[in-house]
């Protein structure tokens, strides 16, 4: 028989062993990618630890296809930033006002609308790809920024999160603001949002991340190199003339992850909060 501390030790060891194995599986591809981006081309597939560190792939990435002063890679970063930022602002804006209306106002059809939003969260995005694409063609929005971000401007998930949080704000605060002369819109932006800092940050970073990583939709609506976001540009590197240069692919992919790592570093407490609050997302 094992005594108490022995069995505790065993179970702890087992737990850590399991977690460590899991961690290796998750983190190994990333480490491999970062290392690969720093290796000479010849070593990428046949050594894990490079014999020397080189930045040649990174230099390649930035100079690739450059005409004069603009590099397509920098241009793609800019495009990704524009589309992700606009979407983030928009999701927060619409999520907050809709969440407020659903949580704190009374109007006809409120429950129907609430259920519709929940209902909509159940469908996989892929279902909407074709109809959306057809819509974009009709609108003439293929190869435009708005074509890229417009389907994501409102998020059922974000709205739901704001709604749930706004329900917990005491009614008297809203009453006080109304007496102080706030319009409903002011109440949302001067009272509710500042009180919901964590929710707002969570909605913002998760939205930003998912837009930064988005690939399929961008691929469908952009053909123009000037408007192409980073994820799509990198996708191109895996095909055609560049497919025999794995170094460019891994260096580009490493760069793609940097903003997300930075976000994670600065807002790490909100990541854990966000995941516990919402279930896994992003």
């Amino acid at each position, binding site marked *: 028989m094992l005594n108490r501390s022995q069995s505790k030790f065993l179970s702890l060891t087992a737990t850590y062993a399991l977690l460590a194995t899991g961690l290796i599986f998750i983190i190994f591809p990333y480490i491999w990618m970062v290392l690969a981006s720093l290796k000479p081309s010849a070593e990428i597939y046949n050594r894990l630890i490079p014999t020397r560190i080189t930045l040649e792939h990174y230099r390649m990435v930035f100079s690739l296809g450059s005409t004069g002063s603009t590099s397509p890679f920098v241009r793609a970063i800019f495009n990704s930033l524009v589309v992700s930022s606009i979407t983030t602002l928009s999701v927060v804006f619409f999520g907050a006002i809709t969440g407020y209306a659903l949580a704190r106002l009374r109007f006809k059809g409120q429950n129907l609308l609430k259920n519709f939003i929940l209902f909509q969260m159940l469908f996989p995005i892929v279902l909407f790809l074709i109809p959306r694409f057809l819509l974009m063609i009709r609108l003439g929005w293929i190869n435009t920024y708005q074509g890229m971000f417009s389907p994501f401007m409102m998020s059922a998930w974000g709205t739901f999160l704001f709604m749930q949080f706004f329900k917990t704000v005491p009614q*008297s605060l809203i*009453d*006080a603001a*109304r*007496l*102080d*002369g706030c319009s409903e819109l002011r109440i949302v932006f001067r*009272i509710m949002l*500042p009180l919901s800092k964590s929710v707002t940050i969570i909605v913002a970073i998760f939205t930003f991340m998912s837009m930064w990583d988005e690939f399929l939709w961008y691929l469908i609506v952009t053909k123009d190199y000037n408007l192409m976001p980073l994820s799509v540009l990198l996708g191109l590197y895996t095909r055609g003339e560049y497919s025999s240069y794995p170094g460019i692919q891994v260096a580009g992919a490493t760069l793609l992850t940097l903003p997300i790592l930075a976000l994670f570093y600065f807002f790490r407490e909100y990541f854990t909060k966000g995941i516990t609050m919402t279930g896994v997302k992003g």
Partner: protein
Amino acid sequence: MAAIRLKNVHKTYPNNVLAVSSFNLDINEGEFLILVGPSGCGKSTILRLIAGLEELTDGMIYIGDQLVNDVVPKDRNIAMVFQNYALYPHMSVYQNMAFGLEMRKVPKTDIGDRVHEAADMLQIIDLLDRKPKELSGGQQQRVALGRAIVQKPAVFLFDEPLSNLDAKLRVQMRAQIKTLHALLKTTIVYVTHDQVEAMTMGDRIVIMHEGLIQQIGTPLEIYHQPRNRFVGEFIGSPPMNILPVTITTDPKPELRHPDFVLPLAQTSAWLESIGSRQVNLGIRPEDVTLADPHSADIHATWPVVLIESMGHESLVYLKLADGDFVAKVNDLPGSLKEGADIGVRFQLDRLHLFHWESGEVLAP
């Protein structure tokens, strides 16, 4: 300062709860009016209707000469103080007080002056830079008051503003609010369920029960001439003793209880008008005296269950065959002790008779 007039006000909430009905009340300019009643009787609803935070189901509300039924809260020239203070947690004390003025586009320098003036009055100058969560309950309460004062409204609405404070602070704030009223002379509607606040603070009291006004009057009127059994029992602590008695006219008008008989001064015509032999007799605990059981002029003799002495006065709990009786007395007779009998003498000019069914007072 403004008068407030509620005419035939009804409020039914969306879930079909009838919160107030047939509510008629004229509040005078500069009056300090208390709304009191048990939980759920509709006090807050009335305040929120006056503030415009809820919509009337029926009726009319005037503030000053203006019918405000369709006026939004911010244009009603009122300020409200909430039970939980409702300070904006993300703003400093200064910002909390200034916010309403900013929304009304008061010039910046005026805002500064008004906030400092109010903060001075309430002795919270030193707290202006703090956030609400860095304040004690009493300080938060004063900030909430300050936020109302800087608006210079025509009407203050208070919804149980002191109920979250400890007893000592409550006494202080009570005095402070009364001082403020004397100074500003703003009309105040003040909701409470604290008897002491009701009795000591207001010019008039409105007693409510289940959405209906039970009585409107000065504190002394309410105390000495309760219009019905509910008011009699609600105001006064401990509450009025209620004893079922029968009226007899033969051989002379008397009130009969198994343990005592009291003479009745009323005429037989009055007795006929009641139409019932059974009535409830109301006697306040302070309207009796205790004496030795063998004294000559006592009305009843009952055993003592418990004596609670509070120094200047004592509560004596007596056991009756069909209930309890509480006496509140200053002088304790020498023979008083728990378990022994004591004689009780009623103050005959302080008796209240209530109709057996309706509970209405039977005025002589």
